[in-house]
């Protein structure tokens, strides 16, 4: 058996390399092939991947930044609108106050004018009444002498007209009459 093994070893030894002794030709081929692989991938592929990763990060960060800017812009606009709204409210309040004041003034104006008018009308009425009274009084005064003389002549039975005319009785009486109411009224 030992002989067989020795024969086998002798036969196989030249053909079968020792598996833990590297075949230098394979190291050369492997190194060249792996070198080409490294060259192509490290030069042409992975730098582009890094660029792409960077571009993605920038795209995301840029997006966030843009969104923040929009938000700030919107906030500023909102503040501006709020300010404008407040201003408009104040303005409206001012206008309302003014209008109320105006309306009051106008009302006062109208009232004053109406009062004036009514006073004027009342005064005119009073004047007219007084004038008419004067007229009536004057007419009555003219008639009253005649009436009184006529009435007295009827009562006495004779005409006193001439008598009265002669003596001026009527004129005197009238004068007294005139004096009396004037004093009584005063």
């Amino acid at each position, binding site marked *: *058996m030992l002989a067989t093994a020795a024969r086998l070893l002798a036969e196989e030894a030249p053909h079968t390399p020792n598996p833990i002794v590297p075949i230098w030709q394979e190291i050369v081929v492997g190194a060249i092939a792996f070198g080409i692989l490294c060259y192509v991938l490290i030069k042409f592929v992975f730098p582009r991947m890094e660029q792409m990763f960077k571009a993605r990060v920038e795209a995301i960060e840029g997006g966030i930044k843009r969104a923040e800017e929009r938000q700030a812009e919107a906030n500023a606009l909102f503040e501006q609108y709020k300010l404008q709204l407040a201003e408009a409210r104040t303005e409206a309040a001012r206008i309302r106050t003014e209008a109320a004041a105006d309306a009051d003034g106008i009302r006062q104006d109208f009232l004053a004018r109406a009062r004036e008018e009514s006073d004027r009308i009342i005064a005119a009425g009073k004047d007219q009444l007084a004038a008419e009274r004067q007229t009536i009084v004057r007419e009555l005064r003219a008639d009253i002498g005649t009436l009184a003389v006529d009435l007295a002549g009827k009562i006495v039975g004779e005409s006193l007209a001439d008598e009265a005319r002669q003596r001026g009785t009527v004129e005197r009486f009238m004068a007294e009459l005139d004096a009396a109411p004037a004093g009584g009224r005063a």
Partner: protein
Amino acid sequence: MHSLVIVPARDDLPFPPTVEEFFPPALVDGTYPWLTKFTLLVWIAVGLLIVFFLVAYRNPKMVPSRGQWMAESIYGFSRENIAKEMIGHEGVKFAPYFTTLFCFILLTNLFSIIPGIQISPSAHIAIPVMLAVISYVMFNYVGIRRHGFGKYMKLSLVPPAPWFIQPILIPIEFFSTFIVRPVTLSVRLFANMFAGHMILLVFSLGGFALLGANSWFIKPISLLSWALAIALTFLEALVIVLQAYVFVVLTSSYVSGALAEEH
């Protein structure tokens, strides 16, 4: 030894599998070992990765398409979960290499469970050695460039300990940092891929061997053997991803250590 071997069902399915399985002849006569299944697979992996990334990123958009998203996810994973996690903010500049390394190891490992290929170029130690040498040169280079040669050596070799222990510690540190690191890095990946392939071979070829057994009691066991081969393929898928991840994480950990200010 021959007495233990079960006679295979077919002559072209030798059982048990030997190391010879890992060294197929050249694809074209006289080109061994320049043009073998292993070197061809390395070129295929490189070609597929270049095509995938260039196509996925030929016209990148802010809102990525499916392919672009996949490419970005792979890069983002290496960038955030390996480079930044292990090295910190500085790690970002190493992310392109780590991604390339991760993709290359993952795809070449993946070949070991793709039907019709079923072997990883990393099952030959040459490929892991090549990758480990790059990592080794890389972490030493960034360390020397950051601290200067003298200070880097001091940081790497002289741990904070009393002076009389240093004669013991310095050789240990030297051995672990400058010899063990590249060796374990390459052997770990190689051994996983080598053993994974071997295990799958054992169970799938073992199924045929059992089927070819003379006893009818043994023949049905071949089904169990194949079932195990399928189950172990899933395990192998896990190992594939894990080994790619571990290789890149360890490389970044070494770079991180070389950049660090204290031991």
